[in-house]
């Protein structure tokens, strides 16, 4: 996929996020939308995966450490062909394979169950370590929230990854700047994020705009060149990106749009889609 195609797909993923959370009447649109571009980049460009064979032993792995943004993850998986896009409307309902937080036993393509913050990164580290122990060359990606890195376990895992020089591991931090109680800098500041990962012996790549496909492309390409240390990609994003009334609003962390808001959100995204078609 070229950049334009990726941008269009990311917009489709955004529509699905809004649709799924609207159907569920709950869920986490804000952080799903901020990460929609990276979900799209990973599943349509970066990762060596095959929807027809989701358990292939040598595939690349992804762990959604910030598990509450499952709507974004599920939307990317569905559009990539792991399961029907229509399933997204069953999000969070009884009998659905789409649990409120990712469940590897239920959803095709999900490599690890997650949701309790701080835990996914350790699992990703275990996967990357396993590849090294077995002489396999698959890569492991994990996405963390910027609020999530307040969890101490994140730094236990980072210390281990740096110590073990896991250069097949890419830790992505979605730095949208907001958590449930407000601005991360006000609640309990994790800044400077890049210097922290540097101190834990990571190669750090700062992405000025993590909602820009070209900047993501440059970052992930650079990550492939890194040897002897894990990579941390710290990407500045906009929480709620693409939906006018959700952008940069902490209140949209875990609230679903009602019917009226849904219509506005979809109209916003339709406009983005039309603009992309003019390119």
């Amino acid at each position, binding site marked *: 996929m070229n950049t334009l195609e990726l941008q269009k797909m990311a917009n489709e993923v955004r529509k699905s996020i809004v649709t799924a959370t609207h159907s569920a009447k709950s869920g986490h649109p804000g952080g799903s939308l901020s990460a929609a571009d990276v979900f799209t980049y990973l599943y349509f460009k970066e990762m060596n995966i095959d929807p027809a064979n989701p358990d292939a032993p040598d595939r690349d792995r992804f762990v959604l450490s910030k598990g509450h943004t499952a709507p974004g993850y599920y939307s990317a998986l569905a559009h990539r062909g792991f399961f029907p896009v229509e399933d997204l409307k069953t999000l969070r309902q009884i009998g659905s394979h789409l649990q409120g937080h990712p469940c590897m036993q239920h959803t095709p393509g999900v490599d690890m169950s997650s949701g309790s913050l701080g835990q996914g990164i*350790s699992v990703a580290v*275990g996967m990357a370590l396993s590849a090294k122990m077995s002489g396999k060359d698959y890569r492991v990606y994990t996405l963390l929230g910027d609020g999530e890195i307040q969890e101490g376990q994140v730094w236990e895992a980072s210390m281990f990854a740096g110590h073990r020089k896991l250069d097949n591991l890419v830790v992505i931090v979605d730095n949208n700047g907001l958590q449930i109680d407000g601005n991360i800098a006000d609640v309990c500041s994790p800044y400077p994020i890049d210097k922290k990962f540097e101190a834990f012996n990571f190669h750090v790549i700062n992405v000025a705009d993590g909602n820009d496909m070209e900047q993501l492309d440059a970052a992930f390409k650079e990550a492939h060149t890194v040897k002897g240390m894990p990579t941390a990609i710290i990407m500045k994003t906009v929480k709620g990106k693409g939906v006018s009334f959700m952008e940069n609003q902490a209140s949209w962390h875990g609230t679903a749009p009602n019917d009226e808001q849904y219509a506005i959100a979809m109209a916003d995204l339709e406009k983005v889609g039309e603009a992309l078609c003019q390119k």
Partner: protein
Amino acid sequence: MSEVKKIATRESYGNALAELGKEHEDVVVLDADLAGATKTSTFKKAFPDRHIDCGIAECDMMGIAAGLATTGKVPFASTFAMFAAGRAFEQIRNSIGYPHLNVKVGATHAGITVGEDGATHQCLEDVALMRTIPGMTVVVPSDDIEAKAAVKAAYETDGPFYMRFGRMAVPVINDNPDYHFELGKGVMLREGSDVTIVASGVCVHSALEAAEKLAADGISAEVINIHTIKPLDKDIIAASAEKTGKVVTVEEHNVIGGLGGAVCEALCETVQVPVMRIGVQDEFGFSGPAGDLLKEFRLDGQGVYEQVKTWLA
């Protein structure tokens, strides 16, 4: 009288892992800076490439074990019971239990027999915590032979598996040709008709001693060793309760939620008889030599004997 052979079950754990490592390439052992104490150093020496020291970071260790398990390895995550079941409870629950990953938790230094280190290290809650996790197997071996068998069973059983080992050397009680370890099956050690004593771990030996003393007083005690707390062998307990009409449980654990709790839950669904739960009576431990602490908490043979005698009187 011949000298009784004594081995700590943590030692058995280390030895069994080293054996397992020889047979199975997929066995990986993890530690959190306690390889010397958990006795996994034996494995580490034999298979340095398959031993992972995570440093003092138990929560991370459980996550790493989960990650290894998703790729087909069989990790044995080892640390003290307090830091496995206690500190890393939620990691075990959410990253191992919920996805039903094939992770084995080897928890050593359980109970008051940690000894001198005192209450902060004497885990009396782990069985209660672990058995509430759906799909988790919980085994509390009573001696060297049973502990080694448990490690083998853990490898052969798919899914999360918690093993509770002790620091203190305990007598070998299962070295007879009839002994056969079967996961989820209790072991009838002594038949009796007046009272049933159900015990686990180090307390199985105490229960046998108590039964001997009771016999001298004309009381016939049946002794059942429950090495697998989950899934619990409800049948053997119910059948014995039916026969004797009175059940005593003995464990080196808080009487809330452990073996005593599990047996009461089983009996209230099957044979309703009075149950006395011998164990740590909802309090913290304290420092002292391990053997003396067993006496102090009345979990040695004499202590169990006296408590049962008083209860029956």
